[in-house]
């Protein structure tokens, strides 16, 4: 999993870090160009995934597929992967959002295969 996440971080200059987490906040892996607290970041990303799911449920607009947070100097993309995991991508602010999604989608089959190996066949669904 580490190699896949390293590949994702290395695939775009604008990607700073990637954190893969279970929906109950346990980090399954991370890769980063800067020091990050992966444990807390994983819990925060899991919370964002939960909150987005609750909000979209309440709004009746179907399951959340992407969460985008734009800050002063960066962005965080969160993609729920099935019901048990989510991936958070931290980027610089000036990034083409479609490109981030493209990179995630390109690596997703391999990430899902690795998750299936780690968690069993319970990940269900894709970005």
């Amino acid at each position: 999993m580490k190699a896949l996440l390293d590949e994702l971080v290395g695939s775009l200059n604008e990607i700073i870090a990637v954190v893969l987490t279970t929906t109950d906040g346990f980090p399954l892996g991370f890769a980063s160009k800067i020091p990050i607290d992966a444990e807390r970041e994983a819990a925060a990303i899991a919370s964002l995934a939960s909150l987005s799911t609750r909000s979209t449920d309440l709004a009746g607009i179907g399951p959340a597929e992407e969460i985008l947070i734009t800050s002063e100097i960066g962005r965080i993309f969160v993609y729920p992967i099935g019901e048990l995991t989510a991936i958070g991508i931290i980027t610089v602010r000036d990034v083409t959002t479609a490109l981030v999604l493209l990179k995630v989608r390109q690596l997703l089959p391999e990430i899902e295969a690795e998750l299936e190996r780690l968690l069993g066949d319970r990940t269900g669904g894709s970005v």
Partner: protein
Amino acid sequence: MKDYREVLKSFESIAGPIKPHAEVLRRYAENLKEWDELLVKVFYDTLFSYGTSASIFREGERTEREVALKMWYRRVVSGEWDESFWEWQFRKVGFAHVIRGIPNEFILSAMSLLQRTFLEKALQEFPVEEAVRVYTAFKHITDAVATLMAAGYMYCYLEALSESTGMPPALIERHAVLLARRIYEEI
């Protein structure tokens, strides 16, 4: 939300069974019920004398609260505790504190005051051995009630957080562990 029976089961497994204490209180119930005035007075004199706890009450509310506490006390010392009694402690008495914003530290401190006042009165009224027996029964049941209230308080907050944000309880627990670990390591 955890069921109150599970909380009670944990209490009895660790602190001991409740039933023998019910039998003790039933034997003395008529006597003990007469202490309601004293206990209620000490209880609310104390709560109303402390700014932070006094601010919880509405003006003119004391009489109403005293009636409720007397009713609760008399039911507790009756030793007649069926399912409806425990459900009342958990759902009504416990959650009334959440509704009023009365935190666990107030609940547990107030229960401690009630227990100590009861002990002092028991030592006045009974020979020491008997006083200890009656007090132990009262302490056991009121500890069980305090446990239910404290647990209910926490589960209510957890459930509210989970319900409003969609965060599963395990994720909330994870946040708590990470926070606790950080605080623990700071010392």
